[in-house]
């Protein structure tokens, strides 16, 4: 298909002055305490080593690597990171390990293979799902982060808007774009004659 994909720039932050995970979490706790999240950090979080931490820019770079999309929004990244942490306090540590597997110019598929070998496959797929669905977690614990910016709408953006948005009155009557992807694989239903119950043209 012809849709272009921007080049991916990856790599962990080595900025000495970058925000640490601890300061990030403190900020998160301060912002969310009004929503019933306890103020203060779990002791386990405070004990994380510096090498396990992942700052906002680092999380954004990791996100670009796992999704293969270079143009991700930094604000959404920060909010997803906070939500992923709330959903599973150890997630950011796992993500930091995953970030260390990232190489310049690496395709997402290659990163997934490396993640798989390192026992980080679920971490990577959780992060991918968060970006594509805009949602973290499941059921009553699900946390909504992004709607129209969820990556799932991008693969069809040449022919479909995210529901609730539109392209003006009666916009849909023209021909849709070319498929650009192969037809679904699989064994099709066997051809069959009209069933005895088929309508007779009523």
């Amino acid at each position, binding site marked *: *298909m012809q849709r272009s994909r921007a080049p991916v720039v990856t790599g962990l932050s080595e900025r000495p002055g970058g925000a640490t995970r601890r300061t990030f979490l403190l900020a998160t706790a301060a912002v969310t305490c009004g929503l019933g999240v306890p103020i203060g950090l779990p002791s386990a979080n405070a004990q994380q080593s510096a090498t396990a931490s992942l700052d906002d820019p680092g999380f954004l770079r990791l996100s670009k690597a*796992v*999704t*293969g999309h270079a143009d991700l929004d930094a604000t959404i990244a920060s909010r997803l990171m906070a939500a992923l942490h709330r959903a599973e306090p150890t997630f950011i540590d796992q993500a930091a390990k995953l970030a260390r597997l990232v190489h310049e110019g690496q*395709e*997402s*598929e290659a*990163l*997934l293979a490396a993640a798989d070998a390192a026992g980080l496959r679920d971490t*990577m*797929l959780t992060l*991918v799902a968060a970006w*594509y*669905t*805009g*949602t973290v977690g499941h*059921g009553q614990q*699900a946390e*909504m982060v992004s*709607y*129209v910016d*969820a990556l*799932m*709408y991008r*693969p*069809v953006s040449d*022919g*479909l*808007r*995210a*529901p*609730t*948005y*539109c*392209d003006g*009155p*009666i*916009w*849909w*009557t023209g021909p*849709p774009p070319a*498929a*650009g*992807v192969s*037809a*679904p694989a*699989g064994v*099709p*239903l066997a051809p*069959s*004659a*009209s*069933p*005895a*119950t*088929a*309508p*007779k*043209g*009523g």
Partner: protein
Amino acid sequence: MPAPSFGPNGDASADVIVAGSGVVGAMIADQLASQGHSVLIMEAALRIERAQAVENWRNTPFENRVGSDFQGLYPQAPNAPAPLYFPANNYVGLYGPDGSGFKQGYLRTVGRTTWHWAASCWRHLPVDLRMKSTYGVGRDWPISYDELEPYYCRAEEELGVAGPSETARQSPSERSRPYPMDMIPWNYGDTRFAQVVNPHGYRSIPIPQARSSRSWNGRPTCCGNNNCQPICPIGAMYNGINHVQRAEAKGVKVLVEAVVYKIDTDENNRVTAVHWYSADRQSHQATGKVFVLACNALETPRLLLLAANERNPNGIANSTDQVGRYMMDHSGFHCTFLANEPLWTGRGPVQSSCLVGPRDGAFRSEYSANKIIVDNISRVGPATLQALKLGLVGEALDNEIRRRAIFGVDLSISLEPLPDPKNRVTLSKDRRDPLGLACPDVYYDVGDYVRRGAAAAHKQLEHIGSLFGAVEFNIATQLNANNHIMGGTVMGTDPKESVVDGDGRAHDHANLWLPGGGTMVSASVVNSTLTMAALGLKSADAIANTLRHA
């Protein structure tokens, strides 16, 4: 302008007291206010704003959206919950072999459930009103299609229905007037689907729908936001709130968070007052000349049973034990597959074409008819769910989402249950709502007529699937509710077998009307709203007639 009056203690008085602010209640209120009568509407729950509902939906988590949680975005009144399923609040108790297929998603919000309908505005076929005499099953209506037809025309005008102008694409074609607006244009997928299936008799035709194909009575032209369910962002689709607002402009007063729970009757069994709880749980009463309960086919029977009084110990309008019986819905199921060509589901409103070939035929003496809606709700959500489950990332993930979204097909099949007296709304013996009022229970068994109809539909769907070289072809085994609640206060000439007459007036109470879906004696396979509205208009005429002679 005539308006209800209120006493210092909050009690109210009006010519007409209406419980329920949905399409039927609000339209009747609007009709009667137009003729100079004072009307009070009481709605159990909250008034919401469209923009807030849109925002709430955009803030709804992915799984809820893919799972069609069309209730969760609507704020709930503390005292009057709607049935909720994410998670289930068990407000409606479901029993019987098909109770799990009767999970109705109705709103008690001002304007009610047309906030999140898809706006299909079908008419019953003439033969649908004569099922017993034609096919030997079900019941005949006490009124004929010819009597109902002018009301169908008026209802189409009231709701602003867009439909096909060609007779060959109408179902039924027995019409005395054209549709108020021409049909909503089809997208590529609708056109292509029809090309493939129509040579085989399935007869895909445009769905008549209360959606603007041009600017209509203040409604904008549809912009294909593909979000009719659960909320049209721009108001191009009819919602009951349209009639609420029209009625209010004529002096009608709407009370919110007003839960009607008790009904007074006099020595002639005329209704003299209804009592309601306000938001602060204080009881008030409303007196009037005429009383209309339009709370839907499940809540109206519940209220009639709750309101049992000394003269009516088994419930209001229930002297012959008919209230709550003959509950129906278009119990249905979905069929999904991936076609061998892209159909680009999701361009335009959420549904525009429907296969009505299986809607009628001699087979109806043996098994249920069906209709097959070609759903046009965007498949991007389900496609993403499926593609993520495959563990894909990067370009492979993007391509898989695109493939499943544009080749994906979702068909919604509706079946026709026969009216069965054992399918019934009753009052729960152990569950109470926040006001301490008994919650509704429903026993539901679709019966072998529907089960045989489902089997016939399966064969048709397999045939249709084969025409598209379907892969991942799946027919859901679980019946789903369609929120087309009918029965419960059925109409008839014999009070022993019915609750109301052909005008929707209670046999037991000369000034009590129970209009809408509850009165319907046969379900057909088509969405019930237009028929409910037509019957509501017929009731409104009858009410106006009695008020003129009062």
